């Protein structure tokens, strides 16, 4: 097992990894930007090294500084968390070259799966259904239109280097297609330095359902069931749960088998996620693979009772997975809400600043992963997610009731948050009956008075 691990991340996921290390008896080294001196990952790690000024391009995205820090701190491994350098194949490769274990798949796997078109090809070759679309990137607008007609409208145009909803455009007919295709290419070129796009069938009433995969260096690959992440705002997940309210044993078996097929095809090692869309007829389509731990990993942890971050570390240390596929069971229902420092009533504008009142929910069936404390100043430089609340219980109903009470007692003063907004979703009839598709938030937002989403005055005023 490793003696010391450097955590190349910040916020709640850095704390999450520190917790796993402490429970495993592994020493930890945090890296931090000058804006994060007051952050708990710096305080709770065994050591910490400042790697640059506030902007992440000058700190958390600086592979050279992180590797230097790893070298002077003499760590055995680096855990990249999610975001930042977690899916940067070059960074993983540098780690490999320096003899520092990158806790994740190989750089080659990251590179393969990072190219969405290549990932689709691999899935297709493995016999896994993918969303009907162009066979790889497509350059010529006329050829693209032909493909779009073949697939049948509506279609989506996606950037090869995109992800998380960035660089996607919808076309309902040949006229709009011609326009959107050009825009998509320009946007992709601008955003990712790569103008390649591909075309896909638009899925009706899609649900976003992903499968958690674990693979080890001994050839064992298992899946830990699904997470339903249909509740998204602008393709950013907001609420995730497991099991999915629409899942059947048969569909889970087929989707799980498909997920393992893909993982096996790339010789996947460590934790990864196979993302799928499921349409209203129960057809599923592979969309992409995430080669890192996900924000929503805690949902699976609580629903199946397995500590994913510890498994990541054990796998990276060369240990075989000791969990057998047939022993993986959903032992309860779990749901996660991402708490963000943002103002839903003002188009979700970020709301950084000093937290002057802080009381996180507690009690039976509630897990909180957060780096916030009273008087903590949320810096404006990074992601607005400041906390994850996970509730769980024997049934979905219980998990939802518990989430409602947990969000109801979560007190954050001094900044705006999406607590009231997400609590309104948890209590929404359509959501409760399990009917949320990826269109849910758009619809919910349009039919719900905005006053409901703003924090009560008591939560935003100073003391």
């Amino acid at each position: 097992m490793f003696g010391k691990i450097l955590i190349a991340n910040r916020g709640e996921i850095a704390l999450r990894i520190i917790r796993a290390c402490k429970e495993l008896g592994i020493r930890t080294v945090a890296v931090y930007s000058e804006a994060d001196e007051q952050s708990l990952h710096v305080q709770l790690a065994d050591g910490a090294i400042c790697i640059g000024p506030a902007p992440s391009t000058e700190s958390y995205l600086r592979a050279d500084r992180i590797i230097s820090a790893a070298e002077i701190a003499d760590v055995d491994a680096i855990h990249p968390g999610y975001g930042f350098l977690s899916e940067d194949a070059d960074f993983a490769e540098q780690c490999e070259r320096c003899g520092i274990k990158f806790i994740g798949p190989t750089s080659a796997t990251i590179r393969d799966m990072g190219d969405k078109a290549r990932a689709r090809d691999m899935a297709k070759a493995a016999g896994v259904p993918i969303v009907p679309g162009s066979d790889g990137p497509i350059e010529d607008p006329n050829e693209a239109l032909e493909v779009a007609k073949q697939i049948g409208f509506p279609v989506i145009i996606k950037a090869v280097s995109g992800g998380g909803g960035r660089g996607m455009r919808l076309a309902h007919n040949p006229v709009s297609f011609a326009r959107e295709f050009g825009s998509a290419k320009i946007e992709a070129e601008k955003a990712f330095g790569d103008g390649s796009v591909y075309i896909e069938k638009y899925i009706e009433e899609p649900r976003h359902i992903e499968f958690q995969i674990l693979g080890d260096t001994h050839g064992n690959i298992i899946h830990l069931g699904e997470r339903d992440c249909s509740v998204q705002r602008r393709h950013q997940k907001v609420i995730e749960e497991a099991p999915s309210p629409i899942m059947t044993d048969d569909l889970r078996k087929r989707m799980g088998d498909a997920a393992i097929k893909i993982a096996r095809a790339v010789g996947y090692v460590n934790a990864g996620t196979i993302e799928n869309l499921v349409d209203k007829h129960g057809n599923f389509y592979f969309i992409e693979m995430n080669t890192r731990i996900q924000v929503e990993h805690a949902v699976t942890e609580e629903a199946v009772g397995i500590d994913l971050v510890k498994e990541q570390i054990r796998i990276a240390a060369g240990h075989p997975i000791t969990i057998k596929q047939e022993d993986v069971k959903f032992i309860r229902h779990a749901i996660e809400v991402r708490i963000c420092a943002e103002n839903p009533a003002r188009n979700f504008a970020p709301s950084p600043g000093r937290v002057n009142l802080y009381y996180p929910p507690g009690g039976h069936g509630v897990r909180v992963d957060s780096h916030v404390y009273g008087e903590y100043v949320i810096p404006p430089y990074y992601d607005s997610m400041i906390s994850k609340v996970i509730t769980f219980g024997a049934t979905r109903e219980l998990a939802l009731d518990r989430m409602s009470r947990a969000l109801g007692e979560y007190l954050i003063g001094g900044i705006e948050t999406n607590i009231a907004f997400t609590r309104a979703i948890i209590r929404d009839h359509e959501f409760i009956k399990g009917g949320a598709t990826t269109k849910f938030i758009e619809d919910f937002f349009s039919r719900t008075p905005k006053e409901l989403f703003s924090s009560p005055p008591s939560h935003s005023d100073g003391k």
Partner: protein
Amino acid sequence: MRRADLTEFEIEDQGFKLRIRRNGDERPVVTSSNTPPPFAVSAPEPTPQAAPPPVVFPTARNTVALPEAGVSYIKSPMVGTFYRAAAPENPSFVNVGDVVTETSVVCIIEAMKVMNDIQAEARGTILEALVENGKSVEYGQPLFKIKTA
């Protein structure tokens, strides 16, 4: 130099910065070092001024780096290992009392097997060397105290 350990991060100037260290089996202990901020201790440094905006964990920035007239610091622009000379047998690039200009090389920082010359980027006289030869430094860590010209 990969063998340098974090525990060697302490610097001689006890009052300069503080950091919190946690060993596997201890509650946080405050030791002198130049890395992250410790818990709410009353920092052992001269801060007779009005309190800065409230911070929970005092840091170098809010407790020590008070502007002193005519005094400034040459800080590390990277993470790595600090060397005062080009080779063990060579003399130090600079010593206390030496006058430096913006482009004077004051030390080398080794990062990722590369030796980086570090320039003073200020004019003045070296008042104090703050880091011992061969120790690790982090981004922004003061290396030399200088009296600016």
